[in-house]
């Protein structure tokens, strides 16, 4: 493998007929343990998220712990049911699907999970794990399935003879490739990858990222790539959405978000990445304090408790998503005000 991946950042993804996935107003609250007298607190994991993914596009959803990104991913996969909101896939209302049609949906939307150790059944042989979706959806004959498994293993860069092995005989990177092969088996159109490389050794991360990029290109897959690290997604995503405490604070083409971040949290995330350059040392981190509890999120703008530029308005009024360029939006009163000033001063 040459090890090079080309992800074109200029070409907009093909859009025949609009987004393949559309999420509107998604909310997921968890109730925590009730005390003896009832009335548990509500955990606002996801609190009103809108997003779209177009066919063949890689959308990265980036957030730190407590952002709700994993919960969002699970709602989209219908592994948990949201409290409110709509999810539309290929024109169908996902939350209303049942039985056969739900199975049809599952075939089209497949997950890749974070932990290569717990995401494959340790007692199953690798080949059986890869074929699980084929068996469940009764795709092809037994012989056809077997052939497809071998082909998939090869496709993800594994020796097909590994099909007969058990997971514990494989390394973390290999197991993750098995997970990817298993996700590709039913020929899905959308992959929801929940931190697919976070648990891998750094040297293996690049390999698996390259693999995902190759597959995405060859198979025209749409990928929802959930990550906690902006650096990881820079080279694989077309667009980025930044999440904080259950809400999306900024969305836009990767290049734009990285070059001209608008939301203070995005800026802080970018600044916090330790630069491998000893001549440019950061003199103090951009962000203070800890993320507030999702049980009692701050009023107004949720980021205000840690924001270096928070103003009065941020306490009382929740900022709305404002456009800042083609497809680039952010929800911040201060950023919006700055932009209005710039507009005014334009000759």
């Amino acid at each position, binding site marked *: 493998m040459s090890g090079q991946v080309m992800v074109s950042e200029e070409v907009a993804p093909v859009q025949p007929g609009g987004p393949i996935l559309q999420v509107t107003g998604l909310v997921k609250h968890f109730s925590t343990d009730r005390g003896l007298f009832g009335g548990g607190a509500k955990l606002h994991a996801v609190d009103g998220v809108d997003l779209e993914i177009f066919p063949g596009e890689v959308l990265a959803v980036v957030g730190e712990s407590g952002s709700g990104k994993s919960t969002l991913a699970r709602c989209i996969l219908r592994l948990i049911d949201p409290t409110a909101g709509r999810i539309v896939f290929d024109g169908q209302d996902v939350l209303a699907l049942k039985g056969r049609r739900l199975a049809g949906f599952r075939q089209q939307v497949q997950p890749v999970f974070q932990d290569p150790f717990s995401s494959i059944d340790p007692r199953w042989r690798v080949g059986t794990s890869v074929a699980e979706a084929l068996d469940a959806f009764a795709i092809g004959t037994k012989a056809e399935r077997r052939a497809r498994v071998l082909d998939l293993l090869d496709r993800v860069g594994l020796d097909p003879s590994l099909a007969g092995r058990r997971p514990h005989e494989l390394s973390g990177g290999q197991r993750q490739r098995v997970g990817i092969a298993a996700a590709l088996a039913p020929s899905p159109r959308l992959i929801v990858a929940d931190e697919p490389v976070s648990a891998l050794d750094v*040297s293996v991360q690049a390999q698996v990222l390259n693999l995902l990029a190759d597959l995405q290109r060859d198979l025209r897959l749409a990928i929802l790539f959930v990550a906690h690290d902006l650096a990881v997604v820079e080279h694989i995503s077309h667009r980025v959405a930044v999440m904080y405490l259950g809400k999306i604070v900024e969305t836009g083409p990767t290049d734009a978000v990285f070059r001209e971040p608008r939301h203070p949290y995005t800026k802080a995330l970018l600044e916090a990445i330790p630069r*491998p350059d000893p001549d440019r040392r950061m003199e103090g981190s951009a962000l203070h304090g800890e993320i507030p509890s999702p049980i009692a999120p701050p009023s107004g703008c949720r980021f205000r408790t840690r924001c270096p530029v928070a103003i009065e308005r941020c306490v009382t009024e929740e900022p709305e998503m404002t456009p800042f360029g083609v497809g680039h939006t952010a929800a911040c009163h201060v950023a919006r005000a700055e932009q209005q000033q710039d507009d005014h001063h334009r000759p």
Partner: protein
Amino acid sequence: MNEAILTVEHVDVGFATDDGTVSAVSDVSLSVAAGEIFGLVGESGCGKTTLAMATMGLLPASATVSGSVRFQGRELVGLAPENLRRLRGDRISMVFQDPMTSLDPAFPIGEQIAETITAHRDVQRGQARDRALALLADVGIPEPERRYGDAPHRLSGGMRQRVVIATALANEPALILADEPTTALDVTIQSQILDLLRDLRQRLRTTIVLITHDLGVIAQLCDRVGVMYAGQLVETATVAEIFRAPRHPYTQALLAALPTQHQEPGSLRVIPGRVPNLIDPPPGCRFASRCAHVMDVCTIVPPLAHESADHLIACWLSEATREAGRPTGAATGGAA
């Protein structure tokens, strides 16, 4: 230049397993000067953690350690367990990677810090408590009085790691070994913890050995760096030298694989090949099988030599190594 507080000389560490002896650390020598932050960098499995654990005497019974590790002039290899125990937590502390498991879930965090103090110093409980409170404030825990009695699960990952650092500082150690202290944390919190470490070094002049795989962290925090691969130490230099003028092919490859922000549209370079099996490692330089400049002589272990006053390298490409390797002939490398 400050004198060396920690000197490692020709250390080998082997683990006995069902399938043979794993040569986890092979003939590593380095020295850490008092007051500096020394970074030990390498990928997973390169032996950096094993080396640190060997220094602290925390390796399991299946491990064999040979060579010399001198701390403040005192030999640690072979030291009686009781004496090692007295050093740990007192003169040398360790900060581990996972704040979730480093703290006892059943005890309040303040108590755990106090316990470290009373284990090594003859002080009253009240005094230990006062010191623990001061430490909590020192590491940036807001409202230490209120948080003193909190159980670890009530704190976030970042907070817990601060508590772990406070415990490590409790007895004003001369040396702190920090093993991937920020890897398990959110990137914004990591940034805060790195600030904290920098600040502590400034104020307390503690020597820190920082073990990590993250070159970014190294660049931001360390004074000098040692690069390890598959149990061997391949290069040591100041942090500026390592980034500006890396000499060892592995270091160069590591740096080349870093995705820089202003790179051409998308290319992630990987180092082709795989880490060698440490149970039966190839003789000589262990990076040879993946090295673009491999030569026949690489089947002999290249000695670590001074490329310049502050820059050591173990590679036959280097003139210094060739000089050093000539007179004594050379030893074949391999299993410990």
